[in-house]
């Protein structure tokens, strides 16, 4: 049997894939191969595996069929399509053209640079051997045997790796601070409490061993023999795969005592979070692990000095850990050659919103927003105009048209009033109202305040209420200044990182879209026609055919008119529900 003959089937079994039916598709392949006729045809040339997510969940179920070196990717695969793939492609040797992905799929992938996510979607995350086959765990073994902890720290410092949790603190420096504390016990924590549908589930579902390997390297560097992965209960698949991966790693002696045949002991425990946003803040996360309410405390002392149970503790984000095996394998020079002056390596970004190819991508630091949105993302659907990108999650800010060519890194995003945060990007188009956007994020931020300090607990609530007032036509002169003043005070006086950034959406939308605020306040008008209270619905007599559909659908009976003659909306009775606008077949209902 030659390599050319080998056929590998990879079915996406990430959360997106599973929801779309990935489990059933995988089973359908297995069933098909078990059938005697097919078996006789293909013998043991063919393997079938579930793999992690490759970042394009909208196209699920995605299936790769690899014959020799030739990879064919199919999209939207359902179990009933499997028999054709088996018969025509695997047995017959002719790929099924009509199921194959299109050009945009390849464009989406080819413009990325996958390091951390490279093996996600390529290897079976539930098989430790699959990770070993791509060189997994070789780096940590070599590290334990050939490097001192301090050499690891120096190497990581040299690579320029910065924390992927959002603040971008240099990882090696943080480790050094922790390692120099005298202590009988240190801990390392993987912060997988991420709310965006981003790096955490994809990495842990798709390649959990890379996170374990990264944590082990970190633990060795700082001298921790115990690690915790703090992960949300809302990611059951990731939790399940991580559990499995930890068990497998223990069986192989990669976790536990004297790991990889060295004298170093290290083990990992999983701690499930209950979904509080603030538990991503490291001191709140520590409280949560010890069983207390997740509430941040003032720093200093920093966790590197006094963390879990008062012991020096390092908390890094999942993506940070997943970078480490690559850095140690390829060297710090290689790593620092990627990215910008201040921000090295790649960044995973969850690209969503008004963009054609929504998905999870990995690009080198310094890639421009234009490349991300238009080249990889395929631009705005339905011919709408680009307005801005909200980056960094609900506490981030927006980046407008004028900064489309901004190379994305920590400093540049901060400079334009946004942040890297979790690495999410929500694309907004001309139909998005920026006041509404700010209120949307503030609603989340104020509800997620832990309540410990008044500026965050009450201040963000008041911000939200002022925004709501503006949206509902109760905006007053001075509201913009009040929003800015209060935002500044909240940012300056809050206890933790959440309060410090919670007003960001307000500040940044005012910075770039002040005219929209002013239109709402002074002219009681929503330029994007989103804020209902400010809209007026009317019927253009020249377009109305008098069909009466709108009048029938109006919940308050505000539309009147004689059959076959133009109808009218009584604006004093209208509740601005928009039903008429949605149902009119002749586009005769307008809103203004």
């Amino acid at each position, binding site marked *: 049997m030659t390599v050319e003959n080998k056929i590998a089937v990879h079915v996406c079994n990430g959360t997106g894939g599973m929801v779309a039916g990935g489990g059933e598709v995988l089973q359908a392949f297995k069933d098909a191969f078990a059938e005697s006729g097919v078996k006789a045809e293909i013998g043991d040339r063919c393997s079938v595996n579930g793999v992690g997510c490759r970042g394009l969940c909208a196209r699920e179920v995605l299936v790769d069929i690899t014959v020799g070196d030739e990879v064919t990717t199919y999209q939207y695969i359902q179990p009933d399509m499997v028999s054709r793939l088996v018969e025509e492609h695997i047995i017959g040797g002719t790929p099924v053209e009509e199921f194959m992905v299109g050009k945009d799929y390849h464009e989406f992938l080819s413009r990325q640079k996958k390091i951390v996510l490279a093996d996600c979607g390529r290897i079976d995350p539930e098989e430790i051997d699959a990770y070993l086959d791509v060189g997994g765990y070789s780096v940590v073994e070599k590290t334990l045997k050939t490097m001192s902890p301090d050499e690891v720290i120096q190497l990581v410092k040299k690579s320029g790796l910065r924390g992927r949790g959002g603040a971008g603190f240099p990882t090696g420096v943080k480790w050094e601070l922790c390692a120099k504390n005298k202590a009988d016990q240190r801990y390392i924590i993987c912060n997988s409490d991420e709310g965006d549908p981003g790096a955490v589930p994809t990495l842990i579902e798709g390649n959990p061993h890379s996170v374990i390997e990264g944590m082990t390297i970190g633990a060795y560097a700082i001298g921790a023999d115990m690690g915790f992965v703090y992960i949300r209960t809302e990611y059951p698949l990731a939790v399940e795969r991580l559990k499995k991966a930890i068990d497998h790693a223990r069986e192989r002696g990669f976790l536990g005592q004297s790991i990889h045949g060295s004298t170093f002991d290290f083990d990992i425990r999983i701690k499930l979070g209950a979904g509080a946003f*603030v538990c991503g803040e490291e001191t709140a996360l520590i409280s949560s692990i010890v069983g207390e*309410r997740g509430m941040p405390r*003032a720093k200093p002392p920093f966790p590197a000095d006094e963390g879990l149970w008062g012991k020096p503790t390092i908390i890094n984000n999942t993506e940070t850990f997943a970078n480490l095996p690559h850095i140690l394998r390829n060297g710090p020079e290689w790593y620092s050659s990627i990215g910008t002056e201040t921000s090295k390596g790649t960044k995973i970004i969850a690209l969503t919103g008004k963009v054609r190819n929504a998905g999870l991508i990995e690009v080198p630091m310094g890639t421009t927003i234009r490349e991300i949105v238009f080249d990889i993302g395929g631009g705005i659907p339905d011919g709408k105009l680009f307005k801005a990108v909200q980056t960094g999650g609900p506490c981030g800010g927006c980046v407008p048209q004028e900064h489309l060519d901004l190379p994305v890194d920590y400093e540049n995003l901060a400079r334009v009033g946004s942040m890297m945060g979790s690495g999410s990007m929500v694309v907004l188009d001309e139909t998005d109202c920026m006041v509404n956007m700010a209120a949307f994020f503030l609603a989340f931020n104020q509800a*997620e305040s832990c309540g410990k300090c008044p*500026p965050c607990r009450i201040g963000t*609530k*008041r911000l939200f*209420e002022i925004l709501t007032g503006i949206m509902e036509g109760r905006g007053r002169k001075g509201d913009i200044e009040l929003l800015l003043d*209060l935002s500044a005070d909240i940012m*300056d006086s809050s206890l933790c990182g959440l309060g410090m950034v919670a007003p960001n959406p307000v500040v940044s939308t005012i910075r770039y879209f002040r005219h929209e605020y002013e239109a709402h306040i002074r002219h009681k008008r929503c330029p994007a026609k989103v804020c209902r209270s400010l809209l007026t619905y009317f019927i253009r007599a020249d377009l109305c055919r008098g069909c009466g559909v709108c009048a029938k659908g109006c919940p308050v009976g505000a539309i009147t008119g004689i059959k076959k003659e133009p109808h009218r909306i009584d604006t004093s009775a209208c509740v601005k529900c928009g039903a008429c606008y949605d149902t009119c077949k002749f586009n005769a209902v307008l809103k203004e």
Partner: protein
Amino acid sequence: MINLTIDERKVSVKEGAMILDAARELEIFIPTLCYDPRLKPYGGCRLCLVEIEGMSRPVSSCTTPVAERMVVTTHNDHLYRLRRTILELLLSDHPNDCMVCERAGDCTLQDLAYFYGLRDNRFRGEMRKFEEHDANPFIQRDMNKCVLCGKCVRVCDEVMGVNAIDFAYRGLSTRISTPYEKDLDCEFCGQCMSVCPTGALTSKVWAGEGRRRMDVKYTDTICPYCGCGCNITLHSVRDRIVKVNSRADNGNKGWLCVKGRFGYEFVNSPDRLTTPLIRREKNGDLEPATWNEAISLIAGRFEDIRYKHGPDALAGLASGRVTNEENYAFQKFFRAVIGTNNIDHCARL
């Protein structure tokens, strides 16, 4: 010792001290709501923010340890503005019913509103409206007045180890709650109430008893119950005890138990004996008498018994409740006046 500069004044304090401690040593007033030197640093209220040279944001002085050559500013326009905003925010979610509040005049929030002259408030909006339904007989919990300083939670945990209350919910709905929001079920030591800076925790025992009167008299004395000897302060209006608390700077650090804090009603009890009583006939009733009559009767009968049966036919039982002076005089009376050592007290019981 660590040397630092606060508001252009040099101070040296011991290592591990917080900036707030150092500032207080210089008698610089920094407002606080959540700070209590008896509890662990918390940093929740954000009023004690100060600026440190070289740091981009203000820090809470109650949680930031001093460092050598640190340069601290505790008061400037920016800090004033931040503190004022925080107070405005707190007051925008507070009933502000000081006219009828038990804690008026003894309320940190009220004091601060006064210092900062907060007549107007830029902020208004939704206010918390929690129902009060706690049936415990000691502590009135009005969570609408709570500023979430967390002192009650911390004292219940750090000092008492009872953990009867904790934070619950998030955002503006955050509140201090008992498990499952049931009635408070704890030791009722009232420590929570004693550290509360507002009217959120007051006592049902002395509600409406006249805390706000100008003629309340404060008397430092010792608790009449167990042998711990806790210092208490009696609040009295004319000849009625209206409240008990304990100063934080004494041996028991201001902590009391349910008896010491709430068990003073007996002093005001209508059942108190107010006149000598004499049983004039064998098996008759006890009837009121004058002091003269009672003392004469006792003196006569004691002398009579001593004459007929000797001094050892008389005995005295002193008490672990009365003062040293009284116990001393009592045993002296038996030994010197009656002439017997038949004197004991309840230590054996």
